[in-house]
Structures are given as structure tokens and as C-alpha cells.
């Protein structure tokens, strides 16, 4: 009974509603942009088919309909409903360029790699950042603090894709530490997927540069945020009282200072996930790491509209879901969030 009550509680419920609403709005926007804008891709495609392949208007229209998963004969609102229904079924249409390949197949092939690389990067960056930040706060004004804070400030100002190019140049080209051309793609040809060591080593070596880029470009921000949050927390009354109670340094640092200093950082966590997913378009393109970001870049360059439209929608959904999970996590950590409808 209590568990059901928690499910319908205010906090989670509003979040779910808002998430679904946003996804709905983005899907709708995508549809209308594709169909209504002057020089919209559907019209262009039909025109192309007619002029280049000499198709009849009806045939061209049918092909376009299949590709975009829209019914072009029906009135606009019906097309919209048809499109939405297909989306819910997971039918995103067919790719322009790879004729006959359903977009959904492409997405299932590319999306996991991005989630893999971005996910691991956030874990590493966040963990590293909060440790460094706390140390910098505890040793405020010292050498460690100055060096770390300066480096952190510099790193967080440089656009992440530029850091990617820098890493590529420095590590790959100038120092020759990594065989850059062999590192393209997410997995080496011929390696069998599965839970074996060879596969795991392989995917990590391919993901190394993207992950390194994400981590280097975000760790500075986490460090500075954690440092400031820790400094604030150290000034709180309950820390002084904890010392007065004779608690050990270790206990105070982790459970009294650490846990409380962490909390404000979670709002930034959600923003950062969205930002990194967005940046993946550039970073994966630079390293030719075949994830969803690379797919977006490639599909835009090739004007493969069905893929572009679907990938954009998926990226947004992925961000919304990730935010939702982070919010849930946060509500577990901070007892002041009223999860129950008390």
C-alpha cells in the first residue's frame, strides 16, 4: 500500500508527466518542421525522385511516405496521428541513403555506444571531480588548491570538442601513442562481441579518446563546484556540533560534510548529461566514433532526413530519461525532498 502511495506522490509524478509532455512536444515539433517548412525535405525528396529517376508523382509520393513514415494523401492532422502512432510502435521510417534500412535498426546499433561512452565518462568525471574538489576545499589556499583550481578553470573554459581535437593531435599525431586510424569506429572488425576480455579491451580502447575528452572537459567544472559546495557546508552549524560531539574526522568528512556538499551538485548533473549528449555530435564526429552523435552529424551532412529526424528525437528522449533517473536518485539522497504526499 505504501509503495503504491509513493508511486503517485507529488515529486515523481510531476517529473514523469513533464518528461512525457516534453517528448510529445519535441516529436510534434519535429514533425511540423519536416512537413511544413518551406523547402521541406519531403517536397525536396519527391522533387528529386521525379527529376532524377523520372518517377511519377504518385510513385514518388508513395516512396517518400514509406521513408518518412507519413501518409501523404491524408489531411495534415491525420498524417500527424499516423506519424505519432508509428513513433509509439518504434517505426521511424527508412533511411534515405541506406535504402531499405529501417531507421530503428540504425538507432539500436548506434545509441548504446554513446550511452556507454558518455555514461562512463560522467561516472569518472563526477567521482574524480568531487574528490579533488573536497581536497581543494579542505586545503584551501594551499598549493594543491591553487594548482587544481587554476587548471580546472582553464579546462572548463575550452570548448569540449576543441579539447578532443587537441587530444587527438597531441596523443595521436604528435606523440604517436595511439594508432589513430585504427581507432575509428566503436569496435575493431573481427572481434566477437560478448563478455570476453578481448571484446571488452577492444571497445575500451576505441572509446578511450572520446571518454578522455569528455572527462578532461568536465572534471574541472565538477572540481570547482564541489570545492565551493564543500566550503559552504564546512561553515554549517551541524559540522561544528559534530566536532563538539567528538566524532572522528573521517565520519565528519564523509557523512556530515561530504553527503551534504554533494546534494546541490545533482542539479548540474542533469544539465551536464544533456550537454554531453549534445556535444557527442561533434566529439564522436571528430573521432569517428560511431555512436548516435556521429549518426546525427553524418545524417545532417548527407541530408538523410528520416535518420536526422529520428536521431534528434532519440537524443532528446535519452536526455530526458537520464535526467529523470538523476532526479530519482537525488530524491533518494536528500530526505528533505517530500516524496510522499504527507
Amino acid at each position: 500500500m505504501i509503495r503504491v502511495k509513493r508511486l503517485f506522490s507529488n515529486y515523481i509524478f510531476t517529473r514523469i508527466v513533464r518528461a512525457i509532455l516534453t517528448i510529445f512536444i519535441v516529436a510534434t515539433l519535429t514533425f511540423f518542421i519536416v512537413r511544413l517548412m518551406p523547402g521541406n525535405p519531403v517536397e525536396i525528396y519527391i522533387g528529386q525522385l521525379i527529376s532524377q529517376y523520372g518517377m511519377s508523382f504518385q510513385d514518388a509520393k508513395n516512396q517518400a511516405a514509406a521513408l518518412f513514415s507519413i501518409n501523404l494523401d491524408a489531411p495534415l492532422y491525420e498524417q500527424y496521428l499516423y506519424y505519432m502512432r508509428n513513433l509509439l510502435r518504434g517505426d521511424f521510417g527508412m533511411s534515405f541513403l541506406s535504402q531499405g534500412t529501417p531507421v530503428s535498426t540504425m538507432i539500436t546499433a548506434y545509441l548504446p555506444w554513446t550511452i556507454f561512452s558518455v555514461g562512463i565518462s560522467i561516472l569518472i568525471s563526477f567521482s574524480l571531480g568531487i574528490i579533488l574538489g573536497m581536497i581543494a576545499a579542505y586545503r584551501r589556499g594551499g598549493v594543491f588548491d591553487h594548482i587544481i583550481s587554476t587548471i580546472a578553470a582553464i579546462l572548463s573554459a575550452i570548448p569540449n570538442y576543441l579539447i578532443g581535437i587537441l587530444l587527438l593531435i597531441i596523443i595521436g599525431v604528435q606523440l604517436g601513442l595511439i594508432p589513430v586510424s585504427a581507432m575509428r569506429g566503436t569496435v575493431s572488425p573481427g572481434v566477437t562481441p560478448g563478455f570476453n576480455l578481448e571484446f571488452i579491451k577492444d571497445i575500451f580502447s576505441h572509446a578511450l579518446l572520446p571518454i578522455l575528452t569528455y572527462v578532461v572537459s568536465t572534471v574541472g567544472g565538477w572540481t570547482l563546484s564541489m570545492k565551493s559546495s564543500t566550503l559552504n557546508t564546512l561553515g554549517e552549524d551541524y559540522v561544528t556540533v559534530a566536532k563538539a560531539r567528538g566524532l572522528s574526522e573521517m565520519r565528519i568528512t564523509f557523512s556530515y560534510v561530504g553527503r551534504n556538499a554533494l546534494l546541490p551538485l545533482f542539479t548540474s548533473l542533469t544539465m551536464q548529461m544533456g550537454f554531453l549528449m549534445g556535444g557527442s555530435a561533434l566529439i564522436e564526429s571528430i573521432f569517428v566514433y560511431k555512436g548516435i552523435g556521429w549518426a546525427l552529424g553524418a545524417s545532417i551532412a548527407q541530408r538523410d532526413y528520416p535518420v536526422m529526424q529520428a536521431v534528434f528525437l532519440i537524443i532528446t528522449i535519452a536526455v530526458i530519461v537520464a535526467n529523470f533517473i538523476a532526479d530519482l536518485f537525488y530524491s533518494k539522497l536528500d530526505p528533505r525532498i517530500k516524496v510522499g504526499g504527507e
Partner: protein
Amino acid sequence: MDNRILSIENLSIEYSNIRGKVKAVRNVRLDLYKGESLAVIGESGSGKTTLGTAIIRLLPSSGYIKEGKIIYRGNEKEYNIAQFNESELRQFRWKEIAMVFQSALNSFNPVLKIWDQVLDTAKAHGLNNKSIVREKAMDLLRFVQLDPERVINSYPHELSGGMRQRVLIALSLILEPKILILDEPTTALDILTQRNIIELLRIIKKDMGLSMIFISHDLSLAAELADRVATMYAGAIVELGSVNDIFYHPRHPYTLGLIKAVPTVSSSFRELYSIPGSPPDLINLTPGCKFYPRCEYRTKGCEEAEPTLVEITPGHFVACLREGDIADGR
């Protein structure tokens, strides 16, 4: 046998500040007798809170003990708290001397339940038996008139300000300390809650035989609960005596001012009094008596040398050149 459980001898405390050194506590000499309640009264900046926190060595990082001793007599031994190292301090705090801080509103870790924080405290002092600790905690919560079951499983934000103050008081007693220091225990609470807390403290005083130090700017608190009162100004004690001495025979102009400033229910608006002027700059102190600029009784001699505490009647000490005149009502 020495009846004094705590002796502060020639204690001077300073804070480092960009502009210079803040002399917050200057050459204070004070004793706490076993089983008594001592009130330290003064305005903000008088040094009373610094004195209190220094006893358990919880000064902020910019503060330090310049000189002096803080002698604690317990377990048939004498210790100088001023010389304890970190690990000695950790064992000593809360077990021998506990301190309840001003306004418990933020004294608890927001992410831990009350029970976890009680257990933390017990474990830090070697008490690992959960059931014993729980029983003690429940007893104490009942003692401070809270519902133990409800409170012990709550998070701090689920309790009201008054409740948190009581929990903190209960927690302060869990290791059965010999001395309890309370810094502004009733400030920031509404008047009804204040009354409740004062009653609670009175019961603690009567039933537990603890020695207590109350730090406050509120004279009425001293009147209710103290056996002896010390008034502090600009880092030094200016008057010390029994509660009777202080309230019925005050001999220092500052004490006089404090008493006059307490409005009575029957006084009219026009009769409201406050000591003119403001506390001195503790970085650049003038020679002579520090209360001089605000004193009604000042004379030429006051500017030259700072008066020291002189025993005028048994147990009643005053640091003022003109105390004799004040006694005669001039």
C-alpha cells in the same frame, strides 16, 4: 579537596584578521564550582561565546589561545584542556563537557535520522551496544518531554525548532557529562518555547547535579537559572558574584546598564533604556578601562589604567574604580 571543577586561568584568546589581531578574550580568570550554574552575560562581541567555545577548543580556524590554562578537574585528576591534542580532545568532548549551541535549528545533519546521529555520538566514545544506547536515548527523550518513538526515527527537518533544541539538550546528556555549557539556549525561540526550555533546564539543574555554564545576553535567563553571574565586556570579566549580589547590589556601571535595560511589564515606552554607544574595536584597544566611552560614572583615573577585579564583599568581585560610589547610590 578542590571544589572547583573548572578553572580558567589568565586565558587570552585572539583571532587573526586582515586588519590585525582581534583580542577577543583578555586575561580571564574564572572558576566553576561543582554543581553550580554560572551565567556569563554580555553583549555580542563581549567575548562570551569565544570563551565558551574555547573551553572545548572549538574555536574557528582564525582563532587561537594566546596564553593561559583551562584546568579541568575530573576523574580524580587535573587536566589542562588548552594543551590537549586532537585525539584527547575527541575523547574529552561531549563525554566530560558538552556544549549546546545557539539555536539548534541547524545543529543536526539534515541527511541523517536522529537515531543515526545519536548512535554516531555513542560510537565515537566507544559505546557500541546499540540496545543500551537506544534505551538511554529514549529515556532522555522522554525526560525532555518528547515522544521518543516519533522523534528518534525522524529527520531533523521534520521536527520544530523547539523540538530540535530539546533533542540537542537530550543528546548532550547521553554520555553523562560533568559540565554542560549552553550558548544562548533560548534565543531564536518563541516565547512559549523559551519558557519550556527554561523549565527543562531548571529540572536538569535540580535533578542531575551537573555543573552548568550559561552564556547569554539575556539577563532574565541568568536570574532564572544561575547561582553566580559574571558580566563580560570587551573580552574581560567586569563583575562576578552571586545572583543576589549582581541583581540587588550591582557595582559595575556596565552591569547596572544591563539591568536598567531590561524592560519591565509595568514600565512605559518612554522609560526604555539602552546603554549609549557601541562596543570598542577589539583590534586597536585604548589603554585604561574599556567601558570608559559609554560610562556614566567615568572620571579621570579611568583612562589611565584598566581596573582589575577586586573582591569587595566575599565572593563579589568588581573591576571598577568607582564601585564604592555606585554602592552608595551616587
